[in-house]
């Protein structure tokens, strides 16, 4: 934990500035994060109605106790029942979890060698390499997904190259497939995986490997028995940093995927923007959050232990 020791019982003596440093961000997050969340919960229990805003019942705090009772009586779990009985919905949850799990594994397998190589590169090169990994991370998500569209489309560069090399005889379909979604996700989240891995690998003591080598341990075994177990915090942080947002991903499956890659983010987006069914969209958000609450708490725990991220 980062809490400095020796500060116990300082509550009364805490200077005004420090109290403000707690109070202002706390209030801000309570208003813009916690309160909206409670509103989503409330609307997820309402029903769709053809009006503005498009749901009933509406909460009117000034209307007295009787009206409040009526309001609570009108709330129902119908939307949640729909989510678990209509295959459109539970199917997209399962698809999202599947896609997120598979792509996190691919990211781990692809990211580990790169992070390991960075940590083993000469010191003076590491700064530049770090910069090169971070730079795309700053470049727009949307732009990076867009870049793949022209590569993967039917008459795109990938097919042109594969045809020219004689690997393919007829152009293959890449865009609007699961493969395209996986490529897009792995590409977009690559830095999120490499950076935490690099951070732990870089701090690893080189003498541990040397000690193992001196004792006659072959390099691959040293890697597997020493390097990998010691890099666990990086593996955990990187995997969670990728897995959680990928489950709710919208842009990548929308632009690169086909009709069978309906992820939960897309279903929610459609319900909200096209069907204007705010209650069902809210219920979907609540269920998604429940699925992710475990991983999020784990992530928060891991991060506050590491005390830093991306540095």
């Amino acid at each position, binding site marked *: 934990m*980062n809490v400095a020791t020796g500060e116990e019982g*300082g509550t009364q003596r805490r*200077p*005004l500035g*420090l109290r403000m*440093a707690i109070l*202002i*961000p706390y209030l801000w*997050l*309570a208003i*813009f*994060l916690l309160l*909206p969340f409670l*509103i*989503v919960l409330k*609307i997820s229990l309402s029903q769709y109605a053809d009006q503005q805003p498009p749901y009933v019942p509406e909460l009117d705090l000034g209307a007295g106790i009787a009206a409040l009772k009526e309001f609570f009586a009108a709330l129902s779990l119908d939307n949640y029942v729909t989510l678990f009985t209509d295959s459109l919905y539970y199917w997209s949850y399962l698809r999202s979890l599947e896609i997120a799990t598979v792509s996190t594994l691919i990211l781990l397998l692809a990211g580990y060698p*790169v992070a390991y*190589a960075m*940590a*083993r*590169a*000469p010191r003076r090169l590491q700064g530049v390499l770090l910069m090169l*990994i*971070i*730079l*795309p991370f700053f*470049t*727009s998500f*949307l*732009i990076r997904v*867009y*870049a*793949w*569209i*022209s*590569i993967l489309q039917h*008459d795109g*560069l990938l097919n042109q190259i594969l045809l020219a090399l004689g690997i393919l005889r007829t152009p293959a379909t890449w865009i609007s497939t699961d493969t395209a979604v996986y490529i897009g996700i792995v*590409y977009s989240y*690559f830095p999120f995986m490499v950076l935490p891995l690099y951070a732990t690998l*870089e701090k690893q003591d080189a003498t541990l*490997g040397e000690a193992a080598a001196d004792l006659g341990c072959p390099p691959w075994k040293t890697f597997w028995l020493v390097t990998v177990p010691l890099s666990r915090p990086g593996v955990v942080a990187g995997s*969670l940093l990728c897995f959680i947002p990928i*489950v*709710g991903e*919208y*842009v990548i499956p929308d632009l690169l995927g086909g009709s069978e890659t309906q992820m939960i983010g897309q279903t*929610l*987006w459609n319900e909200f*923007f096209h069907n204007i069914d705010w209650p069902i*969209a*809210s219920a979907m*958000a609540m269920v*998604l959050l429940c699925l*992710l609450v475990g991983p*999020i708490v784990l992530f928060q725990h891991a991060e506050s232990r590491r*005390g*830093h*991220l991306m*540095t």
Partner: protein
Amino acid sequence: MQDNRLGAFTLSALALGLAFLYVPIVILIVYSFNASRLVTVWGGWSTHWYGELLADGAMREAALVTLRIGVASASGATILGTAAAVALVRAGRFRGRLLFSGLVYAPLVMPEVITGLSLLLMFVAVGIDRGFWTVTLAHTTVTMCVVAVIVQSRLVSFDRNLEEAALDLGCPPARTFLTVTLPLIWPAVAAGWMLAFTLSLDDLVIASFTTSPGAMTLPIRIYAEVHRGVNPEINAVCTIFIAIIASIVVAVSVLGKRLNARAA
């Protein structure tokens, strides 16, 4: 864990990794200079699409809105995020600390559709009209958490004795923060601002939920165009976007290195 030479494995892992990251971006940039209207057919070099872009008023308007939202939200996020970091590192235990740190870490990984939807529903419930300010508030909320995490890591690693010395000599806490702490953590604060700014420029999902047709941001515009198909003008916008971001990142990192060198 360093070697003085690059082994074959190290070299190929790095080359493959970097090629994977950069080849698509390079292709995108090259095709923005394509004379042909077809994105997949090379018709020779031309800056035609940049001219076209300059004449596109809607695009320019969107870019301006995006920049204004970016500067406003990043500045707000930097102040709030730095305060949150100070609270997390320096305040010891306080009531509700667990919830507070939960609120700080959650938006880092929370799917954007959830954040966007919940903020929008709140704005509707409270009766605030959507537009420039709602997007700015939404971006401030999400990016302040990023700033908090970055500044926190810097605060943890620095020598507390410097602060203690100032306090022992009778310097009031607020002044100690401004004259001792802030100058020492400012590379992290600057990096936080920059990351908040680029995240705001980049955001499509949260902005789509919280804006109105009157305040279209650049990503929303680009997204609408992309849905109509790939076109070279979009490649040109993206190229300019990448150039701006890349120069900010490089400038800040060079600046940071110089400052660090001077401090050491």
